[in-house]
């Protein structure tokens, strides 16, 4: 007990310091006023509403699928950045790097497993989230546009997963991407030019690997972050998530 009291006192002292008060411009979140300030005065939390309906917090209302999709994106960002330390987007180094991750790098196999697992889980979570929102009527006014942003996020998720699929440069990757990019060439008129731009050539080789790498690690994650921000912000601006009477 004595040690906890001591810790509490030190924490309280820390909260009184000028530095702390310059970061969190409010007292401890003990009253509704300071709790409101805690949410909308904080950059990381400001996309949340200050208050939510009690019903919307029940597990059956959402199964937390949207939050889970976002958490998976966070996990993927962290593991992905770490994997980039050991990955060269080149033929055939990319494949050797995979072997290194598995056999040489400390905890490399764990990070790769985690990244792959979270990627599949995110596709499942995003689809499930969409179907759940549909069946709960969450797309109805005033949430129309947020539903459209959600469809955009689904596309970005699929494209992220697909571009990541090529990066190990193994047989699985190569032929999945071969089939996928040949489908694009069936698009009338624009198909072949689009495929050429995407692959940076006529065959899946060094250029294609580099382009998929840049799409996977830079362009698509940026697009995802932008859309996720809009998606969260709109939930608040559209008056919170849809709740139905049977959400108990």
């Amino acid at each position: 007990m004595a040690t906890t009291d001591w810790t509490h006192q030190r924490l309280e002292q820390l909260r009184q310091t000028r530095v702390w008060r310059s970061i969190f411009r409010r007292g401890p979140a003990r009253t509704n006023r300071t709790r409101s300030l805690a949410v909308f005065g904080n950059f990381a939390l400001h996309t949340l509403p200050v208050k939510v309906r009690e019903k919307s917090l029940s597990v059956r209302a959402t199964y937390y699928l949207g939050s889970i999709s976002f958490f998976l994106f966070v996990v993927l960002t962290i593991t992905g950045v770490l994997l980039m330390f050991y990955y060269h987007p080149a033929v055939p180094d990319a494949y050797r790097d995979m072997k290194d991750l598995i056999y040489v790098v400390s905890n490399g196999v764990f990070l790769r497993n985690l990244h792959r697992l979270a990627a599949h889980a995110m596709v499942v979570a995003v689809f499930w989230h969409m179907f759940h929102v549909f069946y709960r009527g969450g797309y109805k006014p005033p949430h129309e546009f947020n539903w459209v942003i959600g469809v955009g996020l689904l596309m970005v998720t699929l494209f992220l997963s697909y571009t990541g699929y090529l990066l190990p440069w193994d047989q699985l990757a190569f032929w999945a991407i071969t089939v996928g990019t040949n489908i694009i060439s069936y698009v009338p008129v624009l198909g072949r030019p689009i495929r050429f731009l995407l692959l940076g050539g006529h065959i899946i080789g060094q250029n294609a690997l580099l382009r998929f790498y840049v799409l996977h690690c830079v362009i698509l994650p940026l697009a995802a972050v932008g859309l996720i921000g809009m998606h969260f912000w709109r939930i608040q601006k559209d008056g919170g998530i849809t709740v139905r009477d049977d959400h108990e």
Partner: protein
Amino acid sequence: MNMPAEPKAPEKQEEKNPVSRRDFLNEIAGGALTIAGLGAAVVTVKYASPNVLFEPPTTFRAGSPDDYPVNSVTYLQDQQVYVVRTDRGMWAMSAVCTHLGCITQWKPDSSQIACPCHGSKFQRTGGVEAGPAPRPLPHFSLVLGEDGTLVVDKLEVVMETEILKV
């Protein structure tokens, strides 16, 4: 009192110039931004399309005709090309499925060329026998070089009826 005359003057001017200075400048600025945006897009697409590609050559030598027995289908793995020889003559044919680009395989048991991806099946002549393939396998130009070796050009697609008599 000249007061009533004064408000009239700007009205007249407006009739002369139906586009106000503000609208004019707005449109100029909007147009300039659109053109700059389009230009940037075009330049970026241009930049992203490589001009020089390091892709394998499309013409190759395929040995002498004697290497291919009559009534055989030979798969040249490095080039993804079949060389077929029958009693009528020889032809070279792509081994890349016309459906979605998988590499087909010759099945001697059923005398068929089968694609592993979506189950398309082709005849020896390249014609589609079953499955979703939309076109027959293309035939490539096959000529006998001066030194007596076969030369295949994968860029030159020829009619199915063009057969090299040996």
